[in-house]
């Protein structure tokens, strides 16, 4: 007899389980070696506590009442639960705090799209380290994690979350027009972006700058290009990325990092550096992260924070594919 499970969930059988276990172990080993202690938090939390994170598209999708009438929710990611954990249990401890996790998270899916309702995330949170230093440390941990997973071709895209809000402010757009433009930028709809900026009364030259910035990605040379547009916001973003670049340069493996002025993350708690991970073997981003200095404040602790999360199943797919390509190439 066949007893169905909900779409977007799955059973994992022993062969895959062994591979996932090995991948998890390799990642945790890297994280622990860098001083990130593994933590677990409940999959179920109070809805009002998770909501403090203020995420937009990542609101918990599954909520229900417990036997006492409390509204509970399944977590949609781990950053907010760890912010909650730090604020509650480490408020008096001397920062920085370093934690890692491999944990299940839950999101709503569009039907028939092969999206997962329940998935595993592996990541780290660095709480209470200053801007450039913290970002650089997190990138170094991410690089080590990608190496440990055997993803030699994976690339880290590094962008700036404040760039466009700053730029559109400089262009004098009001809040409503700004939201419209940011939405087009996040969707990377360049045709709509041009129209939207035109309707907001932005001049042709400034529109061209905004379009060009959204397409600007590559090595250290793009920082100079960004400064060349003569927009204060672009220059400031380039300077911030340059700080990260210089600090990275003093380390070894910066070959993986690509600067990307078009990068947007839709979790609303980001500010400053943001990052995404790509691998040629998978058509979707493997994960992402960045800085979210305002998040801890929402939980009552004024500490800066940075981190990343990788989708473990996608990393596994990329690992298998890269291994296959490596064997074919031999």
């Amino acid at each position, binding site marked *: 007899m066949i007893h169905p499970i909900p779409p977007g969930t799955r059973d994992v059988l022993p062969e895959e389980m062994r591979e996932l276990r090995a991948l998890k172990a390799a990642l945790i080993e890297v994280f622990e070696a860098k001083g990130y202690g593994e933590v677990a938090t409940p999959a179920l939390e109070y809805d009002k506590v998770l909501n403090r994170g203020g995420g937009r598209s990542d609101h918990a999708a599954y909520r229900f009442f417990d036997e006492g009438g409390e509204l509970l929710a399944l977590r949609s990611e781990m950053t907010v639960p760890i912010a909650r954990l730090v604020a509650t249990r480490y408020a008096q401890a001397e920062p920085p705090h370093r934690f890692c996790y491999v944990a299940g998270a839950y999101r709503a899916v569009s039907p028939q799209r092969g999206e997962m309702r329940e998935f595993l995330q592996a990541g780290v949170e660095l709480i209470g380290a200053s801007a450039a230093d913290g970002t650089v440390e997190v990138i170094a941990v991410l690089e080590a994690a990608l190496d440990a997973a055997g993803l030699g071709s994976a690339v880290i895209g590094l962008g700036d979350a404040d760039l466009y809000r700053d730029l559109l402010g400089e262009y004098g757009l009001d809040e409503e027009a700004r939201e419209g433009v940011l939405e087009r930028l996040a969707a990377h709809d360049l*045709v709509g972006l041009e129209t939207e900026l035109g309707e907001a009364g932005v001049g042709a030259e400034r529109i061209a700058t905004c379009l060009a910035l959204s397409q600007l990605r590559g090595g250290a040379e793009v920082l100079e290009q960004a400064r060349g547009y003569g927009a204060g916001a672009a220059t400031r973003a380039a300077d911030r990325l340059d700080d990260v670049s210089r600090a990275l340069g003093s380390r070894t493996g910066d070959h993986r990092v690509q600067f990307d002025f078009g990068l947007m993350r839709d979790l609303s708690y980001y500010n400053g550096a943001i990052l995404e991970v790509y691998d040629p073997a998978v058509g979707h981003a493997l994960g992402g992260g960045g800085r979210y200095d305002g998040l801890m404040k929402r939980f009552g602790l004024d500490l800066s924070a940075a981190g990343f999360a990788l989708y473990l199943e996608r990393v596994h797919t990329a690992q298998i594919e890269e291994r296959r390509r490596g064997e074919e190439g031999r």
Partner: protein
Amino acid sequence: MSAGTEGPLRLAVPRGALFGETLDVLDAAGVDTSELRGDSRSLIFETAGMTLVTMRPSDVPTYVEAGAADVGITGKDVLLEQSDRPVYELLDLGYGRCRMVLAGRKGSDRLGEGTMRIATKYPRIAESHFESTGRQVELIEVKGSVELAPLVGLGDGIVDLVATGRTLEENELEVREEIVECTARFVANRVAHKLRAAEIDELTAKLREASG
């Protein structure tokens, strides 16, 4: 699933109404499309430096989103209807111009009052249009010739794509409202856009020139 950073760039080419002009623009951009112009039944064509994959326009976002094609060309109508598929929309190619319209039977005033029943192949575009203009409608999704629906009493009107307006005319229908104008668009997979930046930027520039 992705074509990866090695090997030729994979371009999804729409068959159907956009096919001819797409080949012309690709030719002008320096992509050799002579093999596609023959009567080959193949779906995949290798040209110098690029693999051309032909498919229905409505499948283009699916292939590009998954990375099975790095870039593609399809109509804005398809992109709007599948707006939940995150692909990067890089360029308006300008051809294949047509209008998404609300049409009703000539001489009938049954549109605009009470709850309208609207037949369409584009339920999402129709839904968001009526929602944003504050009207409640009952949408009926059909797959084939939508202009048939109001003639036999399935719905009061239709939301459909109109190029010349001849089909509407022949079926005693007339345009009541224009919803959006659609043209062919050049789209990219978001990972390919990052990892194959130079190739995609170069092709975008050539297509911009060829279509401009």
